[in-house]
Every structure is written in structure tokens, then in C-alpha cells.
């Protein structure tokens, strides 16, 4: 792990000028990492970088506003959220120090769980980049990485941290396995009625814990979300399909042209509801209509914050 050693060294050098550096540390078992907040020298050694570093550290930036000097260890996908936040002028560039590295993809716990019974039953896991060998109970199986990795990694075109102040190790040469999102493509083969029924069924198990919202790096309203507003009252306390789905639409609409597709909402969902289908669809529309890819260029203006008098890509509606 050349990159990890370099990262630690870079953080060590930069730490005196920073209030905190956010990265990952080993979690409660071998399959989990949890966010690490480095405030002192001795914390640096806790840093880990592996295929379980799923949390997007940029999510914690909303709590760090107000002149704090923050360092972030970010994967390529995570760094897009920082660029988007900079673009929206919600952060100041001079307050941030970004430590980058080349990412080869992260694993998806839901997929592991689906394959091996339950995530808690897995006793060991080895990943060589192309194949993952998993032991669970008396089962031992080798599975291609692409079958167990996060969906976003399959279409990832930003494996290396963007706009970073420091870069550790070698750049990742990881290529997207496909240009289009297969899950969304398959979903769109369904008829309108089937899609409606699908969501009706999925939303039934939503518990409205708002993990999707709180894990979203772009949800900057923090404790003042529309969903909790009583006046006007957008959502009832009724945790039923209609209100649950309305919340999803609120999230999607508020992320139009802002969503960087980091997938944190879906990953955070304790009920494993495939809500990224909605976000990916919207991000795709934004790309089609405005040729805009959120979080890749801090100089651009988000498409819903500007307009053209003549919109060549929008069909005129009579």
C-alpha cells in the first residue's frame, strides 16, 4: 500500500495548519470502515484506504462551515461533491485541503449480503482487484469484483481524485465497464404501470429515517429540510407509500443538476431501496439536455441557476 503510506506522510505534513482531516478507519469488523476525524498525530496511523471506504467524507463538510480549515481524503467520486459545493459557493477553496489517490472501486454491502446470506456471517474477504474471495460459514466462493462492487464503480469515469492539493500513489487506470447504467436500462424496459407498481412496493418498506438525505453530501439544508417543515406541510407524519415517495421526489428535484451520483443515499438506506435509479435518471436528463456533468468543473454554473433565451435542446411546448 504505497498510496496509504504517502497519504499518511502528506497528512502529517499538512496537519499543523488544519483543524481536522476526514478519512476512514477500520470499523467494527473487517468488512466495515467508519469515518475518521484526524485531529492529532496519533490519529494518522488509524487511516485506512481500501475497498470498504464507502462513506463520502465530503458529507461532513456541511458541519464544518465557518472558516474551519478542513482536510479531506477523497475518492474520485467523492471529490465531485466538493467541486459542486465550491461551484455553489457553499465552501471556500482556501479552507480545503484535498488528499487524493487512485481508487479501484469499492464493494457494495447489499450485494455481498444478497450473495452470502447476511453481511454479519462473512468471516473473511480477499480482493485482488479482479476477483473477490469470500468465506461465510462453511462456504468459500470466488466472485468477479464487478459483481460485488458498487453500481457507481461500473460506470465510473473519475477513479482519480479531482482538484486535489496532494495526490498519493499511482493514478488508477480503471476504466468504466460500461458507458450506460445497466440497472437503469433494465428498469426502463418495464411498462409505465410496472414502474408505478415497483415504486409502490419499494416505498412500502421505507421507514423515513432520512438516512438517504443525511448521507447526501449535497443536502446542505441540514436540520431545516422541507420534509420536516410543518408550515407549509409538505409531508404528513404518515409513513405510507405516498408520503415516502413524495420525499424521494423532493430529494431528486432538489438535486437536479447538483447530484454527483456518489450513491451515498442508496448505500445509506437501511432498507436497501434502489433509490439511485431516480437520481441516475435525473442526472442523465441533465447531461442530455444541458450537456452538464455535476461536480466536474468548479467554474460552471449549475443548469437550473441560469437559462438561455432560446433553448436549442428543449422542445418548445405548445
Amino acid at each position, binding site marked *: 500500500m504505497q498510496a496509504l503510506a504517502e497519504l499518511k506522510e502528506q497528512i502529517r505534513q499538512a496537519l499543523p495548519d488544519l483543524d481536522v482531516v476526514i478519512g476512514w478507519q477500520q470499523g467494527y469488523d473487517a468488512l466495515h470502515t467508519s469515518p475518521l476525524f484526524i485531529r492529532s498525530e496519533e490519529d494518522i496511523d488509524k487511516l485506512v484506504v481500501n475497498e470498504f471506504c464507502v462513506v463520502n467524507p465530503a458529507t461532513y463538510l456541511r458541519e464544518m462551515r465557518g472558516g474551519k480549515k478542513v482536510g479531506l481524503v477523497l475518492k474520485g467520486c467523492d471529490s465531485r461533491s466538493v467541486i459542486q459545493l465550491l461551484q455553489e459557493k457553499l465552501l471556500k477553496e482556501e479552507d480545503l485541503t484535498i488528499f487524493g489517490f487512485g481508487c479501484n472501486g469499492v464493494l457494495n454491502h447489499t450485494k455481498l449480503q444478497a450473495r452470502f446470506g447476511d453481511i454479519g456471517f462473512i468471516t473473511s474477504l480477499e480482493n485482488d482487484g479482479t476477483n473477490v474471495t469470500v468465506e461465510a460459514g462453511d462456504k468459500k466462493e470466488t466472485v468477479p469484483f464487478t459483481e460485488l462492487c458498487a453500481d457507481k464503480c461500473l460506470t465510473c469515469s473519475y477513479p482519480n481524485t479531482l482538484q486535489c492539493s496532494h495526490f498519493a500513489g499511482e493514478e488508477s487506470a480503471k476504466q468504466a465497464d460500461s458507458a450506460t447504467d445497466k440497472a437503469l436500462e433494465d428498469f426502463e424496459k418495464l411498462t409505465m404501470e410496472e414502474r408505478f407498481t415497483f415504486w409502490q412496493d419499494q416505498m412500502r418498506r421505507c421507514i423515513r429515517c432520512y438516512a438517504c438525505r443525511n448521507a447526501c453530501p449535497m443536502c446542505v439544508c441540514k436540520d431545516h429540510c422541507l420534509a420536516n417543515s410543518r408550515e407549509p406541510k*409538505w409531508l404528513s407524519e404518515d409513513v405510507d407509500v405516498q408520503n415516502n415517495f413524495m420525499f424521494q421526489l423532493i430529494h431528486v428535484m432538489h438535486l437536479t443538476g447538483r447530484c454527483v451520483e456518489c450513491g451515498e443515499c442508496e448505500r445509506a438506506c437501511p432498507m436497501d431501496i434502489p433509490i439511485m435509479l431516480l437520481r441516475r435518471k435525473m442526472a442523465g436528463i441533465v447531461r442530455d439536455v444541458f450537456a452538464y456533468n455535476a461536480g466536474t468543473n468548479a467554474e460552471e454554473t449549475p443548469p437550473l441557476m441560469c437559462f438561455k433565451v432560446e433553448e436549442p435542446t428543449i422542445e418548445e411546448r405548445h
Partner: protein
Amino acid sequence: MSGSTGLLTEGQDLRIVGFLCNWCSYGGADTAGVARFEQPTDLRVIRVPCSGRIDPLFIARALLSGADGVLVSGCHPRDCHYAEGNFYARRRFEMLKQFLSVTGIDPERFHYTWVSASEGQRWQDVVTSFTERIRKLGPATKMAGGTGYDEECLKEIAAAVSLGDQCPCHKEKA
């Protein structure tokens, strides 16, 4: 706004929500009314200051809460009373329009257009053709259900109708 053609009486009542801007489209609808142009009556109009005021979530919420269709109309591009409200609105509406299909809500149930205050005739065309379209699509299916007992309730709703007070589901689903 009333008339005497078959259009107004046949079939069941549809719930169509119209969001109209104060300066152009609301005026256009008024012009149509003053001129006594015949129009279907399924549309329930909500007047807003500008099409730029219409949060796409208004439309989403209406559709999820059981509206069969949502019609949005503002000033023609370049003619916005507030100069640029409808330019922003156009981008938002287009996003929603294209997005709806993934939710399983037929995008045809949502239409946005531009009608000026003098275009009474055009308003009549817009509202008539949109109502026709919704009538063809029929009433929208409502998302229903919850978890646990709620689900049991749904299952037994049909049986419960005959059972009356004896229904094991105490929850009254609207």
C-alpha cells in the same frame, strides 16, 4: 365557465390542477371566459404570481396526491412580467417532464405551455386538448399502502366494505 356540449357531462369527473401565472395565462383564461368560449370544467385553477414561482414539487405533489393531470401555463418566453421568471421555469418543467417516466407516472399527465392574456382562443384550445388527453388516459392510479397492519388493511378493504364496522382494520384509509 360553463357550457352545454356533451364534453361537460359525459364520463366521470376528472381532477386536473392548473397552475396559471397571474399576468398572462390567468388573464388568458379570463379572456376566454369573458368571450364565452366553451371549455371543459375539469380544470381547477390555482393562480400564482409567475410561472417561476411554480416549484416542480407542486406538480409532483399534485400528481402523487391523486390529480389526474396537471396543466401549467405562463407568459410566453421573452414576455414574462418579471422578465426572466419563465426562462428558469422552463428548464425546471422540462426536467420534471422528462423525469416523470421513471416514477411510473405517465408524463402525458403533465403539460406546460405559454398563453398570453389576449389569447382567449388559444387558452380554449389548450385546456380542451389537455382535458381530452387526460380523459383518454382515464383516472390516475393512486399510490397506496404502508407497512404491517396497513398492508393487511389494504388486502381486506374489499371485504371490509361488506363487513362495515366489523372490519378488523381500525385504520380508515381515505
